[in-house]
């Protein structure tokens, strides 16, 4: 039997796609597939999460202040929500749409994410091509994992795919191993 890396469903050897979630089970060496992390055992059960301290450490000074392209005040005016990539401190304003898809661009991919994280080593860090969506509504902000290969975590807890989860100001999000911080300005 083989196990689906995405939903742990068991299939007979020789199966090419998971019958449960549709994830490909065949090795595709064309590099176009999502990189399944070798450290796959970080399936965040509570115990493992504790052991995996470097992962959870609220990464070295998460810069919530500049370098922003604009002053804090002016951002607050235009931008309610920002996502900060922890490793590069790059801030991504989410302003003119209600929905943003995060992922990476590779090869012949037909659907492009709104926010491309390729430059942030997304492939190595296990970000799927279409990994998660952040939705902005009047009163709250939610994140939905799109059935990514390595999962999405809010503050160290893996979230159920395809179900929107509320996020609030300061939450640390992991797309695979790529760390983001969410800022919501009221």
């Amino acid at each position, binding site marked *: 039997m083989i196990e689906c890396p995405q939903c742990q469903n068991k299939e007979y050897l020789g199966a*090419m796609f998971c019958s449960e979630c549709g994830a490909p089970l065949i090795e595709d060496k064309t590099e176009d597939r999502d990189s399944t992390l070798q450290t796959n055992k970080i399936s965040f059960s509570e115990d493992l999460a504790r052991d995996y301290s470097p992962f959870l450490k609220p990464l070295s000074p998460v810069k919530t202040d500049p370098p922003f392209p604009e002053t804090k005040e002016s951002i607050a005016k235009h931008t309610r929500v920002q996502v900060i990539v922890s490793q590069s401190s790059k801030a991504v304003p989410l302003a003119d749409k209600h929905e943003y898809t995060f992922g990476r661009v590779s090869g012949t991919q037909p659907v492009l994410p709104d926010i491309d994280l390729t430059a942030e080593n997304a492939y190595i860090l296990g970000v799927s091509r279409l990994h998660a969506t952040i939705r902005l509504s009047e009163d709250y902000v939610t994140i939905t994992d799109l059935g990514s290969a390595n999962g999405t975590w809010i503050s160290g807890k893996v979230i159920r795919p395809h179900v929107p989860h509320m996020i609030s100001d300061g939450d640390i999000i992991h797309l695979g191993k790529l760390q983001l911080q969410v800022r919501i300005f009221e």
Partner: protein
Amino acid sequence: MTDNYQILGLPRNASNDEIRRSFHRLAKRYHPDVNVNIGAQTDFISIQRAFAVLSDHAQKAEYDKTLPPEIQRRYLTTKTLFSRPALIPLDEPQLLYTLLQITPPEGGENTTRTDINICLVLDQSTSMRGIRLEMVKSSAIEITRLLMEEDIVSIVTFADRANVLLPATFKPNERIIAAKIQTIETNGGTEIFQGLQAAFGQVKTHLSPRRTNHIVLITDGRTYGDEAACLNLANEMAELGISVNVIGIGEDWNDEFADELARITGGSSEYLSRPDHLKQILQNKVLHFTQIYADDVKLHFDSNQTAIVRYAMRVSPEASKMPVDSPIPLGSIANTPPTTILLELELDPIGRETSKVDLISGYFTGEIPNQYPATFLERVNISLPVKDSTVKSQPSPDLVNAVSRLTLFRMQEKIQREIQSKNTENAVLQLQKLATNLLSVAEYEFAQEVLNEAEHVRVNQDFSKQGKKQIKYGTRALMISAINRTTDTLIK
């Protein structure tokens, strides 16, 4: 000079059983009690004579001595693609996918138009009133222009009862047909069995090895209580090589039932949300009928093997789920596009001493209307070696694509089951997964539809009226686009 084996469409090494079965199959079709065709009687007599000789042990031996050496003839070309180049020894079951592409043999393609024996079965129930019936009438009139003098045509209308509007006849003047079609008016309910039975009566009297036989049913309603009778009838039709093709208009017709009718008879089923495209669909269908190389093609295989067919899907020319038991009715085979089927095979545990596993061993039967004798039997044997070392190899993109789309179709089937058994929460989750998968193959609009449907199911605990059919026939249509791109890459 045609010998007795050729008349029964058999190779010389045919078993007694095969000889008997072939005779029965043909005798049923051309028996003069049923068949009023000119020529049916002589066909029947030659079949009977051939059987008399070949079924008698002593006579057969005598006859065989008089024959010139057998010329090996090819009736079909079968190409295969596998998900893996070899199987591995394993103490638990393993899966294998294979794409079978079936075409006329090289140089043997159909070069002339194929004559047809067609019956149109038109729903005239009250719900058809207005634009629907008008579209049906104008489309039916339109396609009579595609018919030729050698074609047999009949028209049946039905509501509570069936009415033979045009009894089976060589194609009459178009104006006569048009005038008859114009008289159709709506009344009453939808009793599909009545319609099919009347159609069967028309088509079966004109079976001929020189024509292909089709019933085209156009309906917008659900038949109540007579489904089982219809399916029994479909089995009878399948035996005689008559295909049933269903075109369902709107939301109310019973899609499972229509799919089943088509599946049994090797026909097709189609969903039209609005009647606008009816004319084009009908035209394409009739054009396809006239380009058929081999009709009523069935794949018979030995089912006591180590390989079980778990799932069978025709990918081309029309996507359709197939039965998994022998014989699989493949329907008709034209020059182009090729007929392609995707099989999921489950293999029993394989021991280390095994070096080769037979996947499919059996034979094709069918009729080639533009050849005489038309009937044929061709043996087929598909096997794969067993190798201990796992050879790493990339399956062909065509196969990967086809299996990927099949996965989507089966997710849809699972959703239907979840909703039927009232597990709506699971169904919603599955719909969302389906939507994500659709996004990854660039089906944005479809993905959005599926998400909307997920919301509808969450709120109403059931599919929306059109949602169920849209998702089913939408995922099915993806099958065709998966394989359409490249079919020359198949290896022999």
